[in-house]
């Protein structure tokens, strides 16, 4: 085990974390819009949101990586960096899944809460921001943390089409030089596990607590 290579794995892990956080930020923003669109009173908006989800959930992330990489130059933005392309693709991908998760959480807020808000004469925006969303957030936290694990794992795909230098990419490069796949892919796997497993456990723990609280 060469220390330079091990260091390079940690370097890759840092890039994995950066891409994951950017994805969470932008994917979350778009995802919130998708979730609200799914329960909008306007039928065309609902249709657009559900079509968006259907399409994104029916296409592999690798294909979206291609769109993120080659799309911007076609739209006239010139070439984008690997990180930007991966962020675009990952955000679009995650927004469809987060949107669907959060729609479920919004609809899980008890019906009388919606009705009471309406009876109090709150506007639609007030009802969402003051009554529904604060309650939905509590329900949404466990599955949202759980989805973080999916995002981190999925960033590994960014090593393929766009060639972003994250953990899997670096592990592959090292393997090409050393031909010790068990050592370096094993180490990379352990690093992924050390990041993902605590998040999985946290999500499960919070879910149990929520179930007890609402019983």
């Amino acid at each position, binding site marked *: 085990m060469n220390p330079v290579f091990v260091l390079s794995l940690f370097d890759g892990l840092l890039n994995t974390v950066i891409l994951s956080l950017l994805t969470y930020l932008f994917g979350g923003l778009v995802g919130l819009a998708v979730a609200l669109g799914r329960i909008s009173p306007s039928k065309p908006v609902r249709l657009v949101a559900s079509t968006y989800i259907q399409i994104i959930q*029916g*296409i592999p*992330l690798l*294909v979206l990586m*291609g769109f993120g990489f080659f799309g911007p130059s076609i739209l*006239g933005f010139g070439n984008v960096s690997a990180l930007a392309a991966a962020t675009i693709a990952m955000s679009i991908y995650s927004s469809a899944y987060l949107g669907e998760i959060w729609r479920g959480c919004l609809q899980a807020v008890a019906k009388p809460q919606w009705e009471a808000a309406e009876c109090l004469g709150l506007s639609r925006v007030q009802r969402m921001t003051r009554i529904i969303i604060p309650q939905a957030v509590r329900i949404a936290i466990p599955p949202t943390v759980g989805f973080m694990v999916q995002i981190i794992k999925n960033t590994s795909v960014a090593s393929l089409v766009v060639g972003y230098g994250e953990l899997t990419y670096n592990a592959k490069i090292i393997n090409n030089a050393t031909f010790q*796949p068990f050592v370096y892919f094993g180490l990379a*796997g352990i690093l*992924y596990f050390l990041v993902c497993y605590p998040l999985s456990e946290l999500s499960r723990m919070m879910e149990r607590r929520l179930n007890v609280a609402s019983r």
Partner: protein
Amino acid sequence: MTYTFDFWPVLERWPLLLKGTLVTLELTLITTALGILLGSVGAVLRTGGPRPVRAFVAVYVEVIRNTPLLIQAYFLIFGLASAGLRLPILFGAALALTINVAAYTTEIVRAGIESIHRGQTEAAECLGLSRLQVYLHVIIRPALERVYPSLASQYVLLMLFSSIVSAVGVDELFGMANRIQSDTFRNFEVFVVVGAIYLVLSVVVRFGFWLVGQALFPRRRKLGTAL
């Protein structure tokens, strides 16, 4: 926008696309059958096996679910190759995908098994069914019936994620896409066409699951819902 789209060079290579699509379907079909089989066995062992076996299955599920498929595929395929075991590439890819999806299936089916009421198995035992009969007819089948929608979604995801094995050199749909790209340099058009094919495939897989469900769970068909 000054870019002019030209889909012809891509569509012209339809035999490659067709071949890739068939390989993707083949991989999905084999992996789905093996995944559900192994996942069901895993779920039974996870809930009712001897203690060390339960622990082993739990560790397997957690390790697979908390690491990326791509790393698992590299580890397995390049690893075995470095140890002198050169698998046919399609076999290696199917193995990696099966090991991956069986872990998710174990978790899903376990939830189904845990939702089966104790009284059901007790009643079955009182009726004199053998242990195997109890497992097959009273536990596994109703459990699969309850979690069937989640299973269908998981296997649509599997079909989409099978594109990843193009990275180890399998000529499935995405692998063919890469080839066509390097032939034509029509990168964006290739992704549009391949994306559309995957979209159709995901509908096909969903429909396949629905059909099999109709045949496998007659009660569901009559009631229109799960139990």
